[in-house]
């Protein structure tokens, strides 16, 4: 069947095609693995962080979530209506954002007067921001065990340079920041989605 091609150099085209297919599938698998790894990291980290958080609240001092971690849990953020529950890390560097929402250094601590700024990835922990609505309650629990209730009063799209949203406010305010649009495929866009909530009542 293949005799008439025997004199041609190299493998027959069909076999070459197959090699290309195999290569494509391997590349696909690798990329798939990379993508899945990002989600897995965010998921596993939150499990470890929930554990570290319990120890933090119980022990009254910061607990590193895993050996050689350069960040630590500083608050627990919950959106009761959406049944969302995430642990917030100190610092909003790219490294800590891989594991969980990060509290912007220098912004107010939960419950303090001023603006408490928390950012997270739009495709992992803060994917739920698109479902938060005006009037929704967001809760922040501090390591001391205080629970601060915030009510969402504003949602908007901003350019990343509109850092006015990060500025301090007279009342205790919570600003949740993530990338926008939510469904963009590539990272690095110039827009941000900002949800702002104002503190309500005394901590519980």
């Amino acid at each position, binding site marked *: 069947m293949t005799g008439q091609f025997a004199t041609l150099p190299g493998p027959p085209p*069909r076999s070459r*095609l*197959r090699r*290309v*297919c195999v290569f*494509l*599938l391997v590349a*696909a698998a690798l*990329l*798939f693995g*990379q*993508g*899945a790894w*990002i*989600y897995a990291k*965010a998921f596993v980290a939150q499990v470890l962080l929930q554990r570290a958080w319990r120890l933090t609240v119980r022990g009254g001092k910061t607990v590193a979530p895993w050996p050689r971690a350069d960040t630590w849990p500083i608050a627990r953020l919950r959106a009761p209506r959406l049944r969302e529950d995430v642990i917030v890390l100190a610092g*909003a*560097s*790219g490294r800590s*954002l891989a594991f969980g929402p*990060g509290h*912007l250094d*220098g912004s107010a601590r939960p419950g303090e*007067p*001023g603006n408490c700024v928390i*950012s*997270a*990835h*739009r*495709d*992992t922990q*803060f994917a739920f921001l*698109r479902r938060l609505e005006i009037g929704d309650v967001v809760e922040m629990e501090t390591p001391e065990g205080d629970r601060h209730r915030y009510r969402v009063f504003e*949602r*908007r*799209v901003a*350019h*990343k*340079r*509109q*850092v*006015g*949203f*990060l*500025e*301090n*406010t007279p009342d205790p305010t919570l600003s949740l*920041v*993530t*990338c926008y649009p*939510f*469904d*963009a*495929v*590539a*990272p*690095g866009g*110039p*827009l*941000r989605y900002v949800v702002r909530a104002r503190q309500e009542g005394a901590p519980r």
Partner: protein
Amino acid sequence: MTHESSRRSAFRFAAFLLILWLAAQGKAQTLPDLGPPVRTDQVKSGSLLIATDRPGVFLPAPALETDVVIRVTGIVARATVRQRFANTAGDCVEGVYVFPLPESAAVDRMRLTIGERVIEAEIRERLEAKRVYEQAKSEGKKASLLEQERPNIFTASVASIGPNEEVEIEIEYQETVRYDEGKFHLRFPMVVAPRYIPGGAAVEGSPGMGWAANTDQVADAARITPAVMRPGETRANPMRLRVELEAGVKLRRLASTTHALQAAPIGDVSYAVTVAEEALAADRDFELNWEPDLGDRPKPAVFAENLDGQVYAILVVLPPDGAAVPGARLPRETIFVIDTSGSMYGPSIDQARRSLVFALDRLHPEDRFNIIEFNHVMRRLYGESRRALSETVGEAKDWVGRLQANGGTEMLPALRAALEGAAQGSEVRQVVFVTDGGVGNEEELFRYIHDHLGRSRLFTVGIGSAPNSHFMTKAAEFGRGTFTYVGSPGEVDEKMGGLFRKLESPVLTDVRVEWDDPAVEAWPEKIPDLYAGEPLLVAARLSSSAGSVRVSGERAGARWNERVPVRLSSDQRGVDRLWARRKIAALMDRMTGGANRDSVKCEVVDVALRHHLVSSFTSLVAVDLTPTLARGAVCAARAVPVHLPAGWDHGHVFGEMPQTATPARLFLLLAAALAALAVILHRPGSGGAS
């Protein structure tokens, strides 16, 4: 065969599902009430737009052109600044422009020009002037208002500019030219650099249109932070600048460290200087230097003018050079403070690093030193000052070489750290503060220096294309040191060398100025110590032009004397305003020193009104009596955005919100695409029994 085909169809089905999922993910999504988001890179170049607090909504800003003519006669400079506001929008606007002037400028005149009509502005108390302006605005009349926010920041507002109309205002000021180290320096600042605004939210403060909100530490933050053009926006508010220099003496050198010049001599001792560039971008300060021929050092002189029965005089004396006085070099403790905030990013931090390395090389082994770097946090090289041995100096240079610029400008902790070590030791203690002065809480810092200076002396080194020279000059004044400006990397050696000559040579202390006239009122009241190469400048009001003045001081244990006769000169105008401006500065310093605000304000208003000067408490206002717009027409107030100073980086100054997306989805999409491609290539019949 059946097995084969079922495997293939399962594979295709999986690929189909993947593509379907991806398609669903990529589907456009709608968010309620947000409007179409606008990306700044969609804004066409050539249109000057200002952002509002609503994303995606931009307003056209009034276009502005500035013409500056400075005429220098001897040591006095008289400048005319012409600002042309053009409304390119289809509705009427109020133009608001926040701009700098030299910190010692005595602003005494404003004219409002509408076509052929010229309206001369009047000086009023600030609130009264504002009221007059607002009244005119509400009646549809054209009006202009000039307010002083800081000694070197002013706001010009022009009301009721109709569609496609042009209105011009002309501002005039007078100042004395700075002489130092054998050279005259004329500076014209062109842009109010973004400043760091420390503090929490303010309870109350003055309304403004700036990018910062008022805080408890900077109650007028919104008035001193004009909107800044974004990267990529075209150059706007072009400037033209001309200097008419009547030096009065032959010059050895005439040059600018900041701009390329075209200078044409007019006669022997005069020059017409223009900047080579046709229309300047207002993104860096202009500096002109001229050096008199050797032997033409400024001679002791009194420039006096007779006005309304009083004589106003400016005394200029250049004490003999310190180098001529023998004096042993005493061991000293030098504290270097370096600003590593975001505004220093780029060429500025390079200049600062080079300046510091230069300074470290000038230390002697018996000296002690330390380095403090600060942005929003403060860091010290050593816990306490160490001897300047070769290994410590080497260590320090390495440390300096690694400094990076980023973050805010919390200056107070660094100042505190620099001044607190003064308790130990008794050697000469000098603090060299390298910064661009990009802060809004100057008063708070001055007060700290005033109260905590002790035996330290503070020397400021200004870096960058548009440093806050009001802060630099005043901080050095309260710190009883000097201000050195390093405009470009090429100047580091020359300027820092000059500073070190000052640090090392004996100071002229206990300077006394005694006028024959007993009714004299002279400013400054207390004469500061003088460093090598610095002239003594005193402004006085006398009852007559008779008599003379005796100047004396002490250097390295020896007394020095000079007697200068008072002489009326016909070519000096506006000496009274120079005197009044110095008096106002001295009164304002008293407030920093803790004097009662209301009584200081009373005195300042009194002087300013009498001499027609703009001050913190007085403004110039001009109103056109003919209404040009319908009464009650509401014109939107629009700020003229300003340039970011040359060499500054937008992202490092204003920051950005964090990057908050992962490439996970991109990876998955690529994976699916590759898998789909593999499936398509793997055509039916191709993978048969092999």
